[in-house]
Every structure is written in structure tokens, then in C-alpha cells.
């Protein structure tokens, strides 16, 4: 009996130590949790924008808080001191980087985020192609009462389309260190009739923006990265088609230090509209020509900038020894000759019969 009692007391005593898990805790109602983090750089100083949702009676309104300082953490700290609640970056979902900062390089910024783990490494990265002050100002004014526009813009089950790149912080970090992989980050600007407008993607090499690709090229980038291209509509001279799915096959070869890649891209499409009376063959040919041309153009553009966002170097890891793989971008990628073959298959033509 006595033993049992001491046991209970001991257990209760142990509970006291459980509190060590909640040290210095702040209640959830004393925290603000920004969902969008905007970062710009003015000469030497960072400028941080925090878009913070705060629920009103039936709707969610957002406000934007701005701070300036030497480092991101310092700014967040300052903002936290000035606000009535503490700022918690745990739930940041989208990081918007100013274009000038992206061109200058985001290596330190991304490394800092990965190091401190305040911001989730799953957060999406975007680049603001406009004046970032204006961008956030209109975010605050025009955000729909339902939530945050930017988040929905990227949400796969909301506003996302296959021609928008989905790049997360850890992928950017990987591209900074990886020998054979770069990333594309979506670029946004204020739209005329819609709040944001997607203008294509920025090509990031070693943490610096070196090139731009448009939305159509981003679709190919997504296809190469295994992201489904389903639902994208392609318009060509003969009509328009809906992409239902894509598969890819690559064969790589290195001869006398010259890499060669043969890629076969198979697309399943459905005919939506036709102009005149094209035969299915004509539509297939038209689409194949359109996409092959687009791929080749994009590739030669990327080759000049030495940024391997398609991850083509990945296919050569077998052939090129690791020592030389370090020089993939500078030595091999430039001499890479490719042969892109697009093979279009019309799966069906909707409710109407195929035009003959």
C-alpha cells in the first residue's frame, strides 16, 4: 500500500519535469503566424514583409508588416518586439523574393533558413517581378475574405496549373550544392484583372538567377521533373488539345568526353477544338513540331547560361566519374548534344468523331 502511494507521488513529481517541454512557451493567441514572407534587399539591408492573416468574425483579413535590418532574424525579432504578440515563422508557406535579390544571389538567405529551421523547408519559393512594396500593398488591400491569395495560387488542389513551377526551399538549397541539378522558381507580378499574374520562371543556378523561361517552357520543366502535366491546354495552328499525361524515356551516352542524350517524350492528348478540317495526323504532327521546337529553343538558352534545371546531368551519373561530375555544368553541359523526340498520341477526340 505504502509502496503504491510513493509510486503515485513519484509519478506526480515526474509530471513536473514534463514541463520542460513547454519552456518559455507562448500561447497560441499570443503568437502571430505569417503565411507569406517577402524578402527584398535595399543596398546592404534586408527588407522583410510578413503577411499575417487575422481572422475576423466570419472572414479572414490579412495585414502586412514590414521591417528593415541586417539579417532576417534580426528583423523578425524587431517586428516581434514591436508587436503585441510574438512572431512565429513556423507556418510560413510561401517565400516571395524580390527579383533584384534573386539576381544578386540567395545562397545565404536559403542556407540561413535551412540552418535555423524557423521556416519550414517545405515552404514554396516565388520571385516578385514587380516592385515588391506595391505587390504586398495590394496583397493587403485586395486579398479575398476567404484566405490568402498567394497560398491558394500555389495550392495543388486550388489554383495551381501545370505550367507553374513548384519549388520548395529545400530544392533551392539542393541546387546550390548539387553538381547536376538546378531549379526554376516561378515569377509573379501584379495582374491587371487578377491579383497575381504568372510570368514564367526564373532559372536559378547556384543560388543566383541567371535566366528566364516562359510559362510554356516551365511546363516542359515540370514534365522533366516528373510533375504531371495533366490539364494543360496547348494551342496550335490546327486547333487546341488537352494534355492528359506524359511519360519520358532517356538514354545517355558519353563518347570521348562528349555527352549525348536521347530523350523520348510521349504525350497523351485529347482534341478540344479544331480550326478548319485538320486530320488527327496533322494535329499530332503540329503538336510534335511545336513542342520539339520549344524544347530545343529552351535547351539552347539554358545551355548558354550553364544552368541545368532539367536535371540532365542526373542521367550521366553512371558514365561520368564523380570527380568530373563537379565540372558538369561548366565542362560537359556546354557540349551536351541532345535529341528530343516528342511523340504525341491522340487518345480521344471528345464527344465528336475524329475529323477525317
Amino acid at each position, binding site marked *: 500500500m505504502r509502496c503504491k502511494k510513493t509510486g503515485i507521488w513519484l509519478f506526480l513529481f515526474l509530471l513536473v519535469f514534463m514541463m520542460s*517541454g513547454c519552456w518559455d512557451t507562448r500561447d497560441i493567441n499570443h503568437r502571430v503566424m505569417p503565411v507569406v514572407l517577402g524578402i527584398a534587399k535595399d543596398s546592404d539591408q534586408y527588407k522583410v514583409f510578413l503577411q499575417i492573416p487575422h481572422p475576423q468574425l466570419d472572414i479572414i483579413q490579412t495585414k502586412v508588416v514590414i521591417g528593415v535590418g541586417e539579417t532576417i532574424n534580426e528583423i523578425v525579432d524587431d517586428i516581434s518586439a514591436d508587436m503585441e504578440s510574438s512572431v512565429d515563422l513556423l507556418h510560413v508557406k510561401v517565400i516571395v523574393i524580390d527579383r533584384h535579390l534573386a539576381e544578386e544571389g540567395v545562397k545565404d538567405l536559403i542556407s540561413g533558413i535551412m540552418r535555423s529551421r524557423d521556416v519550414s523547408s517545405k515552404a514554396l519559393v516565388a520571385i516578385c517581378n514587380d516592385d515588391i512594396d506595391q505587390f504586398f500593398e495590394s496583397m493587403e488591400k485586395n486579398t479575398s475574405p476567404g484566405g490568402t491569395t498567394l497560398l491558394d495560387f500555389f495550392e495543388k488542389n486550388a489554383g495551381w496549373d501545370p505550367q507553374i513551377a513548384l519549388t520548395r526551399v529545400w530544392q533551392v538549397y*539542393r541546387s546550390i*550544392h548539387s553538381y547536376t541539378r538546378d531549379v526554376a522558381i516561378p515569377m509573379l507580378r501584379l495582374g491587371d484583372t487578377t491579383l497575381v499574374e504568372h510570368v514564367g520562371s526564373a532559372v536559378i543556378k547556384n543560388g543566383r538567377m541567371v535566366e528566364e523561361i516562359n510559362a510554356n517552357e516551365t511546363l516542359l520543366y515540370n514534365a522533366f521533373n516528373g510533375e504531371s502535366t495533366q490539364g494543360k491546354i496547348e494551342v496550335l495552328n490546327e486547333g487546341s488539345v488537352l494534355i492528359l499525361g506524359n511519360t519520358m524515356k532517356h538514354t545517355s551516352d558519353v563518347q570521348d568526353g562528349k555527352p549525348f542524350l536521347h530523350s523520348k517524350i510521349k504525350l497523351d492528348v485529347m482534341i478540344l477544338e479544331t480550326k478548319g478540317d485538320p486530320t488527327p495526323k496533322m494535329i499530332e504532327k503540329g503538336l510534335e513540331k511545336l513542342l520539339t521546337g520549344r524544347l530545343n529553343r529552351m535547351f539552347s538558352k539554358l545551355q548558354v547560361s550553364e544552368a541545368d534545371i532539367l536535371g540532365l546531368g542526373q542521367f550521366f551519373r553512371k558514365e561520368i566519374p*564523380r570527380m568530373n561530375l563537379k565540372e558538369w555544368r561548366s565542362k560537359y553541359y556546354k557540349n551536351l548534344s541532345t535529341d528530343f523526340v516528342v511523340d504525341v498520341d491522340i487518345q480521344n477526340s471528345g464527344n465528336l468523331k475524329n475529323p477525317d
Partner: protein
Amino acid sequence: MDKSLYVVIMYILTHIGLILFLYPGNIIDSSSQGHWIPIVIGIIVHFIILFLLLTGLDRFPHQDIITIYLRAGKLVTFLFLFPTLLYFFMANIITVRAYSEVVTIVFLSNTPLWAIMALLLILSCYLATKGVEAIFRTGILLFLFLFPLICFILVVAFQNVDWHYVYPLWNDDFSFLTDSSYLRSFFAIGGVFLFIGFVRPIIPYKRKKVLLAAVALIPIFIISVYIPVLTFGQATASTFLFPFVMTVDAINLTWLMFDRLTMFFLLSIVIFILLFISLVLWMSVRIINKCLLPTIKPSYLVIAVSLIIYIICLWIPNWSDVEQLFKWNTSLRFYVIFGVPISIWILGVKARKEDES
């Protein structure tokens, strides 16, 4: 009664706790390509020492390592049991210190270290005072709760892999064998298996089943290293302190109600580590109790030992000192994880010869 299941589950849990933390980082640091080679070498070593220990123990039914050594004489006892005790002490100090540091690095950045260390030690000290059977039963319970979660995380962690990062597969350079981070990775390989030599009289088990448990661990050794490598590539993964934690961080499942799986992952690992700490506490106290101070009640000894460990842990100022301690401990660890199984095996062979003559 055959209680092999207890031993098997405990074997798997404590090893998972050790593997999923520092092991991936150590392996990734030690070699830049063909990581399966160092992993496989480690696993082979694991099997050899385990097999030697089990074969040696089979010659002495219902006896633990301590009685076997005590029967073999004072010199043998001192040669092998004393370093083992020292090793257990060091292992506990390092584990408590390192894992509480990990907890602060990864999620409780505002909590002082002493509180986390106290929590870790009090819980495992309490468990150890209750005896080895309590530890093993707790193991079963935790296995039922947390093992499915760990399996789920191991499966969904494949979400972001890029299989091309497997290449290059072969590595001509075997310099990793002497690399200090590779030697440190043996903490996961030879860290806890000795407990099967201690629990024998209390929890009897079958040799075959323990070997099966070790086989079940092989995929975990490989997965723990390859998931980070395949997700980030060696060049990026080697910049992380805990590559596996970072990989779990990058898992994105919209249908899952929890935003960050890392928390659940880390908590289960820390709980497994609690089991490990209490098991090692119990073993060191058993050695002290049987060889040095037979009159004192084991539960008092457990408390005393935990207190000493806690005080030493408070002395260690930072993470680089923990790593330094890890390095110092390496030679002792190799002496113990090779010395004990081999000596038990030799004693077993000798006993058989005596039986025959």
C-alpha cells in the same frame, strides 16, 4: 519460458533509435560515393560479433556474461568487464548529452539543456529501477504504438527521391575504413547488442530469433543512409548535421493533418533512446552490483549512477565537445564490441573442450 519476442523487439527498437540519428550523417561524411559498401561492411561486422557472442553464450545456458567472466578468473573479469562498464558509462553520457542537444537543435530551442537532460535521465532511471523485465515490457508497448509510425515515415520519406543519385555505385577508394566519422558510425552497429549477454538468465531467448532480428535491421541500415542521399544528393546531404531529419522535414503530404512529421519522428526516436539509456543503466548497475558492491540495493545504485551521469553531462559545454568525446570513445568501443564477443566465444570453446575431456 521462451521470451524471444521481448528480446527481438528490444533489439530492433534500440537499434532503430541509434541508427536513425547520427548513423546516416556519419556514413555520408565518410564516403562520397557507393555508400552501400561502408554500410555492408558494418552489417557484416555486426553479424560476426553477434554470431560469436551468441555461439559463446550457448555453451553456458542460464548464465550471463558477468558470471561467465567471474568463473573464468579475476584477470579476465578485469580485462573485459571493467572496460565494458566504462564503455557503458561513456555511452550513456554521450547519448544523454547528444540527444538532448539534438532535441534543442531541432525543436525545443528555448528549453535549457539541463531540463531536457533531467527529463531523459529521470524517465530512464525510473524505468531502470523497476528492473529489466519492466524495460522489456515497456519496449513491447512502445513497439505497438510507435513502430507503425516509424514504418510509415520510412515509406513516405521516399516521396522526394531521385533514383539517379544512386550512381556512381562503385567506390575504389577504401580510405573511409580509417575515417573517424566511419569509425563513429559503429556506435549504431555495436552500440547495444551486448545486452543479449546480460538478460539471458532473466529473459531466456532463442539464438535463431535474435539473428532474425538482426536481419530485419539490414534494410533500416540501408534506408537510413540512402533516403537522404537519394533526396538531396551526396554533395548536399553532407552539409547537414542530421540528414535523415532534414529528409523527413521535406515530406509534403497535403492529406495528412500534421504539417511536420519530423516532430513525431523525433519523439519516437527519443523514446526509443530512453529505452536504450535505461537498458544501459541497468547493465552497468548489474556489473557494479555483481562485481564490486553486492550489498547495496540495485535501485539505489541506479539512482547514484544516473546522478553521476547527469553531473558529468552538465560539464560538457557544447556540441563540438560531444563530438570530441565520441572520438575518444571510439577506441574503447572497438575494444569492447570486439573483445567481449571474441572472449566469450573463446571461453565457450574452452568450456566445451573441458566437457569433452
